[in-house]
């Protein structure tokens, strides 16, 4: 089981790294997906190797996939708006509000 967990952890960390360092908003969205998928791997792995009697973990993962899709839709819509208002989706410019 541990390899799976490790892969998930690596994936999660990569996701975090991506979210925090990408300048491209789409890239950030993709990194977020990485993080969600890391969680999914975790859940499924636990279900498969530890708690095999019920499918709770897999069910949870299904829900997460659905919700992540919905989130991605909203996110992409906002990115479109970003593009329209800033003529670009680079995060460097998106700091009008501060302090």
């Amino acid at each position: 089981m541990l390899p799976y967990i490790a892969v998930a952890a690596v994936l999660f960390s990569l996701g975090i790294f991506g979210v925090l360092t990408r300048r491209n908003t789409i890239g950030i969205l993709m990194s977020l997906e990485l993080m969600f998928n890391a969680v999914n791997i975790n859940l499924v792995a636990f279900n498969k190797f530890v708690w095999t009697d019920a499918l709770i973990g897999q069910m949870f993962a299904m829900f997460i996939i659905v919700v992540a899709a919905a989130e991605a839709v909203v996110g992409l819509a906002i990115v479109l708006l970003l593009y329209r208002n800033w003529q670009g989706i680079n995060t460097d410019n998106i700091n009008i509000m501060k302090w």
Partner: protein
Amino acid sequence: MDPQLPITNVTETLLAMLPEIFLFCWALVVITIDVVSKRKSETLAGYLSMIGLLITGILLSFSTYGKGFGNMFFNDPMAAFFKIIFISAAFMAIGSSFGITKKKIVNHRGEFFGLILFSTVGMMFLSASREMISLYIGLELTTIPLFVLAAFFKDEKLSIESGIKYFVIGAFSSALLLYGMSFLYGLSGTTDLLSMRLNIAAFHLTFKQIGVVVLISNIMLVAGIGFKLALPPFHQWAPDVYEGAPTPVAAFLSVGSKAAGLVAFAKMFLLALPAFYGTEMFPNDWGMMVGFFAACSMIIGNVVAIRQTNIKRMLAYSSIAQAGYIMVGMLALNEHGLASVAFYMFAYLFANMGAFAAVALFEDKTGSCQIASYEGLSKTSPFFAVSFSIFLLSLVGIPPLGGFMAKYKVFAAAIAQASAHESGQWIYWLVGIGLLTSVFSLYYYANVIRQMYFSKNDSPYTMTYNPAILTVLIIGVLGVLAAGLFPEPVLEFAGQISNSFGF
């Protein structure tokens, strides 16, 4: 009725869920009617939504305690109490958004109100769950519409910026939350919160090393839920989002979303991962860690608020600080603790929604959110000034207003905890920090009052009130006064919450 009594069949379960189901359908109806009526009417959608919320409230009063679908739907006193808060918050947020739907959101009124209603439904589900999956879904159903709502002014950079910030940080923390949850599942094999608590405890007896995992998931959960609460250091999105989002949305965020976070926190940490001060059951003494965050929140919120010139930003920091006070109540693991949290939320609802309604009204009228532009308002719009002052004073915690009663209750709970347990002595410091910073908070709240009252000049603006916002302001004032002067029924109700959590 005994909250533990199961609802036996699906029909009854669905009946128990009737308010949520109704509100969900009503939201669709609102959107549909707005589209069908070709978006002609300025107010139709708004009033429809308010009526829907009222009906939901009435339905709520018929619903019973009990659970269904495993523990996925669990109607306990906490659920009932917080549903009232969510509905009221939504009601007041909608009431204060007539100004922007009249001018700014001309083509999407139905969607705007519909999304608020959807988010409310999410919160209601969230509050009625004792299970991780439904909790997560409730949380997301709450948050995703709010992402949209924050970015609702499609042509305003500020709004878009607040939307993207809210979205990225929100998704980021929900990923963190999920990661923590996944480990909890891994340790217990269940998503039911009560069984999870027992399973982990049993597991820990035989296998001490899982403590590290619990620890990690603990922190992940705090971070994920802390985001919803805007609890420092997970608060940074809040000022930006509050400033950029439409004011009623900010109001709804500050009350509804925060209350949802509280519920989630209570469920996760009091049911699944209870902290035991001083025992070595497993290393999830989250108490002191959350204590640091609460202390930081009170300090940072109140201190930084002093420096703000934009009133929405100031209120954002104020709500960050208020989260700290609420968490003080949460840390009191006794019969007063949860009750005080619930009551605080109740009092805070009226004061904060009222304050945001006043800000929204002023913004609609003048287009400005600067504190300085409130100068001299007491002469031209006395009702506005009086009610706004009452809200602010309630937020400071001046008796006999609700805010004071709430702070009293919270600090009473904390001191009861501190004086009862040797290991809880540090809570005294927390109370001390809380009280001290509440004195600082006077400085910036009073600053607004000062602008409105102390100036010799007359304000160039005179407020005019539409019926909806008038209702909101009046409800706010009455609520604040009632929570301060006759809080007994609410306190009693809140007391049941503690009981239902086994304190």
